[in-house]
């Protein structure tokens, strides 16, 4: 009987660990999603890899996250800024994600 109790406790503890690590990973992703929104000339742009890859610097009009056309005076500078923001955000995301992976308890996951 004691073995079953221990087994159950261990299973519950593992389930709790899984719930917590998944939750903390999700929050890191949310942080990354928030960090990769940039404001420019009255518009709010969600920067993604696809957005960066398809950015056309010969244009001056871009559609922001709300679907509004926004005029950008210097597209080259805007793209450089977007790349820098994205790089910083994805680096931070990666580093924090790596720290989570090495934690083995609920307490250490939520102490980071």
């Amino acid at each position, binding site marked *: 009987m004691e073995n079953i109790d221990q087994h159950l406790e261990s299973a519950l503890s593992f389930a709790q660990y899984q719930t917590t690590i998944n939750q903390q990973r999700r929050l890191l992703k949310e942080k990354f999603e*928030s960090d990769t929104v940039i404001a420019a000339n009255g518009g709010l742009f969600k920067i993604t890899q696809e957005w960066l890859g398809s950015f056309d610097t010969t244009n001056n009009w871009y559609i922001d996250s709300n679907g509004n056309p926004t005029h950008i005076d210097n597209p080259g500078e805007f793209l450089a800024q977007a790349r820098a923001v994205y790089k910083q955000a994805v680096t931070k995301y990666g580093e924090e994600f790596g720290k989570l992976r090495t934690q083995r308890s609920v*307490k250490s996951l939520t102490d980071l």
Partner: protein
Amino acid sequence: MTQGFLLFAYNNEEVDYGLMALWTAKRIKQYLNKAVSLVTDQSTKQKLDSLIPNWDCNFDKIILKESSATQTKRYIDRQLTFHNLNRIDSWDMTPYDETIVIDTDIVIQSQQLNKLWGHNSEIVACDRSTDLYGVKDAEFTWVNDKSIKFFWATVFYFKKTDTAKLFFDHCRYIKENYNWFKHVYDLYDGPVRNDFIWSVAIHSLGGTANNKWIDTIPWNIHHSNYEDKLLELNENSTKFLTKKGLCKIKELDVHVMNKFDLVDKIKLGVA
């Protein structure tokens, strides 16, 4: 163009909204470096006067206005009075050309809100908010299961323009005729709720344009649930004990529903 935050704080029998507003103003200064003005009543001001000397130096302007209506509302396990209907006067009361209004129970832990300044739209509302686990309840998506889209009045940005004034005038009209709008939009039989006023105003001024006459904040603002215990309130993170376990939210703003815990933690910090 002047820019600043506008906070509303009206104490009730148990919740010290004045203290929450003071703490939030300090957070705004720390993270967002913007001016903050406070709308409050005489009794909330007196309570702050008695607790903290020179508290008002944290605000750009103190606007005294008595509560326009008193209702009661459920706070976890008790029924308390609730004075929260003055925010429809935000346009008239703000001293700024551009204003962000936030609830005093939003814990600022990031610089995100600074991205809203200078926005092209005259009103930017919030329709994206989940609980700490990323769950968006149906009640925070639609006003009810056969009605209009839900918008939070918890966080919004506006410019002091004619269009924004029209919006706030319409909000006032909805508040004054709330029983009628409650019937038309099948709003639940609780107290008058700012979120519903906002949702109806955005919907009705949008005609059939599917709410697209306003813009929305393109990131998620998390909220805890009423029963979530706030365990820690740190420099850039908060820790909760929820029904699902421990949860730490870091460098993201969070709307704390459990005001009792929030005030307790703030008091510890103030002391």
